């Protein structure tokens, strides 16, 4: 199997749409609500999850034949926790302010359902390279939604994008006010709902038959 076969490409593209971890599998909602007030933490969080998922997938997949099935969850957690600590230290070293904003949520990547889900469902039964691609794909799918929500919330909640004010002052002078609800987690939940709504109206096969 070549490195960039169509099968591998599918592993990468599927989580972006039809198997999106947030909008289709409804995993990892907690962090999606918590870190998307501003765009910058959302991007960093998305990247962190992507790195952790990809590398954990790679490591677990490489070890998959040596892990006793009874203690596999513990082994998986050890690998994920190691990765998360590494990412956390890197964030603290290079982007300290964002690390402060993300606070506990970087540590909570350990319990992110997406990562455990991919390890259990994919890495335990597949070769290292496809597992790595699968991790990147799922991380991208997660990051994509986070960035979309973070962008909308920062734009309407704080009138800025990546910290730069983009709504002109003349708007505020005529009575425009930033939407306070966008800063609350409620807005993120509603936005996730809207994204799911839009996605399903384009992909009819995602709609459940009742």
């Amino acid at each position, binding site marked *: 199997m070549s490195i960039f076969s169509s099968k591998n490409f599918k592993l990468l593209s599927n989580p972006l749409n039809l198997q999106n971890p947030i909008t289709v599998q409804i995993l990892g909602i907690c962090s999606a609500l918590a870190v998307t007030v501003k765009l910058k933490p959302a991007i960093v969080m998305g990247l962190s999850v992507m790195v952790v998922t990809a590398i954990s997938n790679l490591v677990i997949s490489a070890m998959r034949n040596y892990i006793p099935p009874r203690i596999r969850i513990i082994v998986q957690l050890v690998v994920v926790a190691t990765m998360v600590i590494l990412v956390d230290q890197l964030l603290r070293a290079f982007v300290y302010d964002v690390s402060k904003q993300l606070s506990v949520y970087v540590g909570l990547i350990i319990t992110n359902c997406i990562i455990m889900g991919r390890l259990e469902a994919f890495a335990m039964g597949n070769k290292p390279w496809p597992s790595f691609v699968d991790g990147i794909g799922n991380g991208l799918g997660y990051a994509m939604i986070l960035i979309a929500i973070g962008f909308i919330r920062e734009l309407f909640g704080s009138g800025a994008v990546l910290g730069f004010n983009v709504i002109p002052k003349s708007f505020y002078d005529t*009575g425009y*006010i930033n*939407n*306070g*609800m966008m800063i609350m987690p409620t807005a993120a939940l509603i936005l996730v709902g809207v994204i799911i*709504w839009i996605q399903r109206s384009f992909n009819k096969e995602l709609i459940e038959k009742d």
Partner: protein
Amino acid sequence: MKSLRNYIDKKKPLFSPGGKFAKLGSTFGAIETFLFTPNHTSQTGVHIHDAIDLKRTMTVVILALVPAMLFGSWNIGYQNGLAFGVERGIIDNFIFGFLKLIPLLVVSYGVGLGIEFIAAQIRGHEVNEGYLVTGILIPLIMPVNIPLWMLALAVAFAVIFGKEIFGGTGYNIMNVALLARAFLFFAYPSQMSGDSVWIYDLPNKVPIDGFSGATPLAQIGQGAASKMASFHDMFMGFIPGSIGETSTLAVLIGAAILIFTGIGSWKIMLSVVLGTLSMGFLCNLLPLNAYMELPAYYHLVMGGFAFGAVFMATDPVTASHTEKGKWIYGFLIGVLVVLIRIFNPAYPEGMMLAILLMNVWSPLIDYFVVEGHIKRRLKRAKVKANA
């Protein structure tokens, strides 16, 4: 009339299935049934025809809202006069306020009905009357200074996310009008609470000395309970507040109309009052702060209590449907109102949140009431079988 009928009949094929504008069929149908009584009759089987349909129900509720609306218009003018020391007659006050209310009504109906028409068009349903009452309720529970674009945004949010995504009129979980208010309350708190939003023009101009514009509920929170309006003034509604909610008397007239026609449930209204009074008395026994010292019956005339109890809590879609459930639902609203008013200093008014919370609970209440009935009857059936 005749020529209008002929004109509509002539255009009808264009909008029927297969016609040129078949996609706009439901808009056409809405206009036709608005202008002329529809002559659709059932083709098969036996049907019971009731004189009360959705349109008539809505019309009666709007009639019941008229006293509150008229008083609210007058109060806008009256409060503005108090704040800036302007003397006006009753009629002038009324006209002053009514002119401030009209833009709110126009925006509310324009945006709400627009979305309703588009949603009906997309679904291929008939346009129904679901928004008629909501459209008048929303301006009545807004502060008079609310910017029109905020109102439009709130109406759009409430109609789309409160009603249309659940399936349209009759399927909403929460009261649409209150959802619009809750949206603004959390999104733009500076425009929805505080002392200056309730009186027209107060944020822009300096009032006369000693005038604060705080609502009685806010005054208690500020430790100025002694400055509060008298019970009589609060009952009549000579106090600052959202447009339609201040006068308990005007709301009571509306309540009488609703109860007399059987459209509003008297059980809910009564149990809300009972819940408030019992929780209020309980707090009076242990007065830890100024809100708890407030005599229990004062809660009935303050803030949006009366308006909410009569027009919001009784919403037939979102309230409990079982008879026993209505008592529980109303009583808990009353209890929650007092609890929110007393223990949450951030929200001086609790009616909106109490009703929204109980809206969410009402299906659960119904479920347990029905389960209870089933269990009781099952027990009876079993005893008979044994005998």
